[in-house]
């Protein structure tokens, strides 16, 4: 089994959904049952694959890549088919393979107009391949391809199955993200040309191999160039996260997207951005990251306060939840900006927690809309009376989202605040402690908008217009079973956060140091501004002189 997983595990994991999509497309349009069955089975097969990988994953060695596949792919540009997972990607992959089947189950009874389940399910499956691929890719070009594969299905989902303003939202989403990606691609190319793979033990100097790039190859790049390269990646990932002020595509996309689209967008798609920071930007360019960290931290805390204020101004429940993502991703980015194991562990945890919690909130918003045909909070009320189960679940998720200890959200939020009290040695304590206080204030605002939403939607008595509405029923079986796994996980992770830390911690610790051969460079804790790569740079200069 080990050998099979080593050779095929990640490839199968990535492409099983795509295979499912092809099958769904091949099924005649009339046979909806078959399409649904195939779609569900292929997502379940993917989930089984992920579980197998989890079982065979060596937790004692979670810091290093496992199940690595390294095959030649595009020789001309020395881009290779490299895949591998460590403790950072593992939780996110598990999140993905959990959420997608639940979305499939949920959509069985909730195909938005203009229905067409076949296309809808096929897009969902293609989306899954894109997301998983991004989390397993270890070659920048491969990473980029998967990163972009995600765009198109989501574009169609919003553009075809969305609300009234869907065309605007879809195009905005597509172009905005594409714009970020274009700059990111530029940065990847710059890395390819400027980095020196031989420093990391490769035969060739030019490489897209992320392992080599984070293993010392980038020390050959001058500091200023590094900072510019980082800027490109920052925009690419930052738009996706989204970081203030690049977030305006998000509320529109969420408001217009069909429920399942919103859930996937919130649960997994946004994480591609933060994952990019943790996996690509920071380990590959640690010095530039340290230079940018105060800016990232600042934008993060602005996002926390600003997103919360945006929420407070909303009348539409779904738009409110969308804005809350801006605030929550601010906490994740703040954790990343501290450049400490604490902060990044918090960020990884925050990604999973936000995925579960906000995903759930979007599910609920969708179901509320199905019943009341509106999400205008001034018209809602009394959900607890008419649909008690849904009302309670909404209350539970609001509590989870505001970072209640004992539920998953807390472990992304508080450790991020904690970490910013004591950022990496290379960063300014005063600056980050200021951020800490601002972020802590954000937790109050979060409680404010979530509880006001809860009060308006769930408390009180139903409005007259909906009091006798036959559409208003409690959670159906499909809804309930799509939600239960997420709810259970929110509690379990809240009480036993170690489930994620166990995997993520070693990988995070590993990602913060640069290993070149047997030498370990821990540059982030240097406070006096000396160049910790001095030896390496000298070596590289010598080489290039010798070669030139």
């Amino acid at each position, binding site marked *: 089994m080990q050998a099979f997983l080593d050779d095929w595990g990640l490839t199968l994991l990535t492409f099983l959904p795509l295979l499912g999509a092809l099958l769904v497309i091949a099924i005649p349009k009339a046979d909806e049952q078959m399409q649904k069955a195939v779609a569900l089975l292929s997502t379940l097969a993917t989930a089984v694959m992920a579980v197998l990988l989890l079982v065979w994953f060596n937790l004692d060695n979670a810091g290093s890549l496992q199940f690595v596949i390294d095959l030649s792919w595009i020789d001309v540009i020395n881009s290779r088919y490299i895949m591998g997972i460590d403790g950072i990607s593992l939780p996110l992959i598990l999140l993905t393979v959990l959420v997608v089947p639940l979305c499939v189950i949920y959509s069985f009874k909730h195909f938005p107009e203009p229905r067409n389940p076949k296309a809808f399910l096929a897009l969902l499956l293609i989306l899954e391949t894109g997301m998983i691929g991004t989390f397993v890719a270890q070659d920048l070009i491969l990473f980029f391809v998967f990163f972009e594969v995600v765009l198109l299905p989501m574009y169609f989902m919003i553009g075809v199955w969305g609300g009234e303003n869907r065309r605007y939202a879809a195009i905005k989403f597509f172009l905005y993200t594409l714009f970020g990606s274009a700059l990111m691609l530029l940065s990847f190319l710059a890395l390819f040309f400027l980095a020196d793979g031989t420093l990391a033990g490769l035969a060739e100097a030019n490489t897209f191999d992320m392992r080599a790039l984070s293993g010392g190859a980038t020390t050959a790049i001058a500091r200023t160039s590094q900072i510019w390269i980082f800027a490109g990646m920052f925009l690419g990932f930052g738009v996706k996260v989204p970081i203030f002020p690049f977030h305006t595509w998000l509320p529109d996309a969420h408001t217009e997207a069909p429920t399942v689209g919103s859930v996937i967008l919130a649960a997994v798609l946004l994480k591609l951005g933060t994952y990019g920071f943790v996996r690509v930007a920071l380990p590959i360019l640690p010095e530039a990251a340290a230079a940018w960290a105060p800016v990232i931290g600042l934008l993060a805390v602005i996002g926390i306060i600003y997103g919360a204020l945006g929420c407070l101004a909303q009348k539409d429940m779904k738009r409110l939840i969308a804005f809350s993502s801006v605030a929550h991703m601010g906490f994740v980015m703040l954790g990343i900006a501290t450049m400490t194991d604490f902060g990044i562990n918090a960020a990884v945890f925050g990604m999973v927690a936000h995925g579960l919690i906000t995903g759930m909130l979007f599910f609920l918003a969708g179901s509320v809309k199905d019943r009341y045909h509106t999400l205008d909070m001034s018209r809602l009320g009394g959900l607890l009376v008419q649909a008690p189960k849904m009302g309670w679940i909404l209350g539970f998720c609001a509590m989870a989202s505001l970072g209640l200890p004992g539920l998953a959200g807390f472990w992304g939020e508080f450790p991020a605040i904690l970490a910013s009290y004591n950022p990496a040695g290379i960063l300014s304590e005063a600056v980050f402690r200021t951020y800490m206080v601002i972020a802590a204030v954000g937790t109050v605002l979060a409680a*404010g908008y979530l509880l006001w939403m809860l009060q308006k939607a769930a408390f009180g008595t139903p409005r007259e217009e909906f009091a006798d509405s036959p559409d208003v029923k409690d959670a159906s079986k499909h809804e309930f079973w799509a939600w239960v796994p997420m709810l259970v996980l929110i509690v379990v992770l809240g009480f036993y956060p170690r489930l994620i830390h166990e995997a993520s911690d070693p990988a995070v610790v590993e990602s913060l140091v640069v290993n070149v051969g047997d030498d370990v460079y821990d540059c982030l804790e240097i406070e006096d501004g000396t160049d910790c790569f001095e030896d390496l740079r000298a070596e590289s200069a010598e080489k290039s002189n010798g070669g030139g």
Partner: protein
Amino acid sequence: MFAAEATEGIFQASGWFLENAWLVPAFPALSFLVILFFGKRFPKGGSEVGIAAVAMSFVFAVATGIQWISQVNSAGDDAAVDAVSSTWTWWVNGGIEFNIGTLVDGLAVVLIFVVTTVSLLVHVYSTDYVAGDSRYTHFFAFLSLFTAAMLFFVLSENTLQMIVGWELVGVCSFVLIGHWWEEKPNSDAALKAFLTNRVGDIGLLIGVAVLFFAADQTFSVLEINKMAISGEISHLALLVGACALTAAVISKSGQFFLHTWLPDAMAGPTPVSALIHAATMVVAGVYLIARLYGVFFEGFSIAGSSVNLLAIIGGLTTLVGASLAFVQRDIKKVLAYSTISQLGYMVLALGVGAWTAAIFHLFTHAFFKACLFLGSGSVSHAVHSFDMKSDMGGLRRWMPHTYKTFVIASVALAGIPPLAGFWSKDEILAGTGGWGLAGGTGGNGAYLVILIMGLATAALTAAYMTRCVYLTFFGEFRGHGTPHESGPRIIVPLWILAVLAIVAGWINLPKGFQLVPEGWTERFGHYVEPTADYFPSIAHAKPSWTLAVVSTLVALGGIAVAARYYFGRVRAESPMATEVGRGWTKRSRLASAGHTLLAKKYYLDHLYTGVIAGGVKGPIAKAAYKFNQEGIDKVVNAAGEKSVQAGHVVYDIIDQKVVDGIVNSSGVAPHLAGEEMRKMQTGKVQSYAGIVFVAAALLAIVFILVL
């Protein structure tokens, strides 16, 4: 037979209960789940599960207490007794493992005893009080969850765990205040409680973070205390940490100026008020200070100073709470402000270094205040209202048991010897060390101002309770229908609490109290005050007969003044009257202004709800959103629109006129210029726009970053 032996073995293996204290919160936690998912299937709607679980907790709490006492006894008189902690790995970060676990010492034992006792009585009481409620099962589920969370909090081994417990009790409070959420005022009150506490929680999060790093990356309560006392943590860090945590205490324990949520929280069912908003949850802040006393003691330099943040806040709170209790019509609000005032005493005591007195007062207050709240619930059960002025009066005739227990608890609260409140309050006053009282912790002149504040409050307390008792139980009945005494499930808990309100003070009689043998004095302090190195060495005030007499006279004076007014003049006017027709406030403008200030609760609610919350929710949030839609988003949209325009320009002028013109005029491809081609071209506008958009958006970003 075997079971009996096993039980005996457990008791003899001294420390089994101390080491397995996690079981105490485990019972109610389990019962929460059982009631939540299966409660409605039980014949009594799940309440029996809750009662059984809390009873088990109570038994375990008592057993834990017994083992702790025997541990202290076996250690000998002067030996230090270490706290018993048991831990498990909870989470991992940066290779460091963090624990979850229990920490049992005298302090924790007192709290688990108080929590389980009051909770058990409240459970029994509630089976009658909320009988017939549509959410009966749900109510008991959350009582269980609250009990579990509170026990989890007081048994916390580390500060992070304390945050978890702290917030969980807050959520239970939110849910139970909003129990009748159909009415908007109730859900408003619930939100207010939660959000106000959230404000203080900023301090909790920051304080815990500061102490975590100051203490070399540990959350352990014992370690932090030890390092604070031994001087390994800088004074600045301790001061900052203590100030931040004080913010949390201010909100949770209803201290001035974040106390405003507590009176509103009375919107919840009365048993909830008794359990959560009088006896247990609101003392969480006091407990936090007591638990991390090393930090506060060193951070605020409590020894050797004559004023500090805690003492001032506590002193102000006692006065503010007591003064506001005077103008309430609602009996529960009188008690709520009284609770604020008494919590002020506890914080004040901790501020002047009278640690044991503070915990002792926490202990006695829990019983008499729970008794008062449950009594007010019994009254409202009879008259269907909480309004003393319009719906009560003369109830002693119909409700003898409620009347007697209420009066006993009131006298205990007023601090008249030999009831419980007297002993604990007197110890606090003695602890200030003011007026040359010997042996206080403070420095020169000690905490004289604080002592005066405490004495003034003693007079006020006695007076407002006299008013409350008169309005409720004396004069003529002003409500509708015929009141009736409540049933046994309400009366029995009342009597148990009333008895405790009498005797609870006797377990810590001052040294030198000649009426009892020497060995009977200061038992509470002996078993509760930690002796190991995680507790600062505090000086102990010597009891003073003079002070005891003075404070008793002050309290009696308060009663006398109020009694002269109510039992004298008001009753003389009419048995139905609730005030004198042309009273003081109507004659004196100053008094009238004072009354308005009190009636408006010092305008703090207006400031918080109207100005601050209204401002953030209203103008500030709207402005931010406007900036989003018309500032940032306009740039994005403009970038999009401009690129579409640019696309049109490119298409209309360059492509159609110039390029196509050349093509057409050249006559090379005349057929292609037909309708087909135009369609194709038009379809491409979007992709043109897309490319140009990228460029334009790039510019937009530059603008945003530069501007």
